[in-house]
């Protein structure tokens, strides 16, 4: 029997898509500049179906891509030409939520925000909060080690995953980790998180839940320059405070957010959001210190949320910033580099210079506490050459981040988009070690082929660097 016939035996009509019109929505993820036509899409409803499909792929040598909601911004869930897409949205059950144990066991298609919603009646929540949390899935979050505004204090997805059930690319089902916060033996579930679907498909995920902070103190400060806002972040850190979140927005993103959701932001060069959280007595004391720091930071205006409504208003503009920037420009690339916090000022100055040099506007919204930049490179895809120019500019920014001692990605993954830049950050031997691990677990190179590793498969990336690891294999 051929591959498709065997798939048909596994999936009833309606859950195996092969017609052109049915496949179209799966041809790309949120990075729509890349498109690939898969051979088929299956919609599993139980983990056994995923396992069987992966085994089938292994037997027939068919590459496959797991897909959650397709919100990847780096082409991570781009199909492999002629391969299978495992669309996991229907596997969206919270299997167990145990408030005493502070854990939730979920299927990979569960939407991030749903976990916190279900944990709320118990005073608990799931900490990692990517801006895409109302739509992105935990399977995608696990694959990308997704983050959000709270990573400095609470860490990224990897820190909140206690166990994983995974099907390896060879079709073997393994249990990694356990239900305790602590484990013994190699942290294999920690290693799986962030490998972007290259080492298998997560079938079941055990998450740790945290008690919801009792009190928040949220403040919005206005500055006459991005640099002044950046300096304020350093001053906060030096004072010994550990805020839950510190976010900066520049003029362009403030304008966009304002036009989109009318958050009532002052129209200035830079806004800083600082949020303290914890027991109310503690937050009260911290707020006094923060007020002193803000007073000395040169802020032209400081607003403190007096109610939950005012707090939500402050966050509304920030959370809407990405989509709001869409109003300023027909297209944009979201970049996601990281720099050491003390180099933020330098990085932003250089981004400003590059923006001038390339003749493209760049809006900056970022997780300042983590040094995680999100430059939004605005372009018009209909103008010949602009996409290429935007990609080149985005690439320059990534190289800048690495040069300053940072990283190519804080949370959006490498995908296809940044794999050409991996050699900027990693030495050939580092990449070779990744390739060897990939090859040992996935000898046929089927799981999310062509992503992350520059030497693997054919690169759909237009520009950027290519490395040849062939000689190292010899």
């Amino acid at each position, binding site marked *: 029997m051929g591959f498709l016939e065997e798939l048909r035996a596994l999936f009833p009509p309606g859950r195996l898509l092969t017609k052109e019109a049915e496949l179209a929505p799966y041809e790309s993820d949120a990075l729509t500049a890349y498109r690939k036509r898969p051979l088929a899409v299956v919609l599993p409803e139980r983990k056994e179906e995923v396992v069987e499909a992966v085994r089938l792929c292994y037997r027939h040598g068919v590459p496959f891509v797991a897909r959650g909601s397709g919100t990847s911004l780096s082409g991570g869930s781009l199909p492999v030409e002629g391969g299978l897409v495992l669309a996991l949205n229907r596997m969206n059950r919270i299997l167990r939520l145990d*408030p*005493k*144990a*502070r854990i939730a066991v979920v299927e990979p298609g569960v939407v991030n925000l749903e976990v916190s919603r279900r944990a709320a009646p118990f005073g608990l929540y799931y900490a990692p909060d990517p801006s895409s949390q109302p739509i992105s899935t935990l399977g995608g979050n696990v694959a*990308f*080690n*997704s983050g959000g505004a709270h*990573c*400095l204090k609470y*860490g990224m997805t*990897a*820190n909140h995953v206690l166990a994983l059930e995974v099907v390896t690319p060879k079709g*073997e089902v*393994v*249990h*990694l980790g*356990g239900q*305790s916060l*602590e*484990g*013994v*033996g*190699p*942290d294999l579930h*920690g*290693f799986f*998180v*962030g*490998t972007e679907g290259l080492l298998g498909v997560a079938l079941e995920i055990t998450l740790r839940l945290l*008690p919801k902070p*009792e009190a928040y103190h949220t403040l919005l400060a206005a500055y006459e320059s991005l640099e002044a806002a950046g300096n304020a972040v350093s001053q906060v*850190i030096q004072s*010994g405070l*550990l805020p839950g979140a510190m976010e900066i927005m520049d003029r362009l993103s403030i304008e966009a957010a304002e036009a989109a959701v009318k958050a009532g932001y002052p129209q200035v060069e830079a806004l800083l959001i600082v949020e303290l959280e*914890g*027991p109310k*007595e*503690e937050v009260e004391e*911290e707020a006094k210190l923060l007020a002193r720091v803000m007073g000395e930071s040169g802020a032209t205006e400081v607003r403190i949320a007096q109610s939950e409504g005012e707090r939500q208003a402050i966050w509304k503009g920030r959370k809407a910033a990405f989509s709001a920037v869409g109003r300023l420009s027909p297209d944009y690339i979201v970049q996601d580099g*990281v*720099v050491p*916090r*003390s180099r933020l000022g330098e990085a932003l100055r250089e981004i400003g210079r590059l923006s001038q040099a390339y003749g493209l506007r760049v809006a900056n919204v970022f997780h300042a506490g983590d*040094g995680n930049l999100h430059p939004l490179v605005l372009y018009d895809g209909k103008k010949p050459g602009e996409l290429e120019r935007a990609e080149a500019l985005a690439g320059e920014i990534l190289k800048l981040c690495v040069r300053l001692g*940072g*990283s190519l*990605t804080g949370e*959006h993954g*490498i995908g296809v988009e*940044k794999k050409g830049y*991996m050699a900027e*950050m*990693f*030495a050939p*031997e*580092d990449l070779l*070690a990744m390739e060897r*691990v990939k090859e*040992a*677990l996935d000898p046929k190179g089927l799981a999310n082929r062509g992503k992350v590793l520059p030497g693997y498969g054919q690169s759909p990336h237009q520009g950027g660097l290519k490395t040849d690891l062939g000689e190292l294999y010899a």
Partner: protein
Amino acid sequence: MPEIFASSLEEVREAVRTHPRLRPKGGGSKPALSSPQEGETLLNLSGLKGILEYAPEEFVFTAYAGTPLKEIEATLRTHGQYLPFHPPLVEQGATLGGTVAAGLSGPMRERFGGLRDFILGVRFVDGEGRVVRGGGKVVKNAAGFPFHRLMVGSLGAFGVMVELSFKVFPYPRATRTLRVGFSKPEEALAALEGLRTLPLDLLALDLVPPTTLEMRIGGFPESLGRRLKRLQDVLKREGEVLAEDEAHWERVRDLAFLQESPIWVKVPSRLDLIPTLESLPLGPRRYMAGGDLLYAGLEPHGLKALRDGGIPHLVLRGAQEVLFPSPPEAFFAPIKRALDPKGRFPLG
């Protein structure tokens, strides 16, 4: 037994290339793990030490793997910072690499998380003598395979760690400890259960069996009194307040309560597992991190009981078979094969 010293990256590479089987050792505080077995050469890394980079403002440092934690903590303290996962056996000479390889966290892991939550990057020498880097030196990073997390609890299986980068946090300005006794174990357990879900930001939450809870809070001196009062109200008990609690917790994190026991184990615990664990013949012990982490001192029959009960554990001292259960073959073995094809290192 043969023993060699390596105090630089190059010497580690050389050692790996020339010796068919190696057992890395940092300070030797977990001798069950770092004592060489038949056919192994001991690779002594105690000379591979020193802090390479430390930017207090970034909350990040990088140090050689053989650096004693004591040295690292002393440096951090001069800037008011600490390793929030509170690694054990500092006084006994534990090193950064040994702590990562063993995967150990101490009582204050309750507040911000364990070792796995703070490791940012690694440079290690794999079984072929290649230098491999994973992770990075910034607090947020998602690029490439996270080899640094693979090292946590690895017992040296994938390579010899040379350099490690960690995230650190500001040390609380002041701390207080409340010790509360209950009349029955079930009451203590119920109180523990209740505290776990409350937003009290406890630095440590320990059950000292059979019936005592110890809680540590940290923060502004001005707020601690009120927070302590609230804790007492929640528990409906006055308890005993340890104002100068530093020395107490240092003894706890150095596992001083295990001193008399021949065998030391770490057990990943859980609330629902505690009654089972309490029915076993375990010796002196303490449940940390709200009950998720048990360190116990055992006699051989206690160890046998753990094993017979199928309860996962790691032996730090006093036995040959250290890890139970073995890592899952289908995932572990290929990674081991990829990084240590000749089987130079422990495990598998």
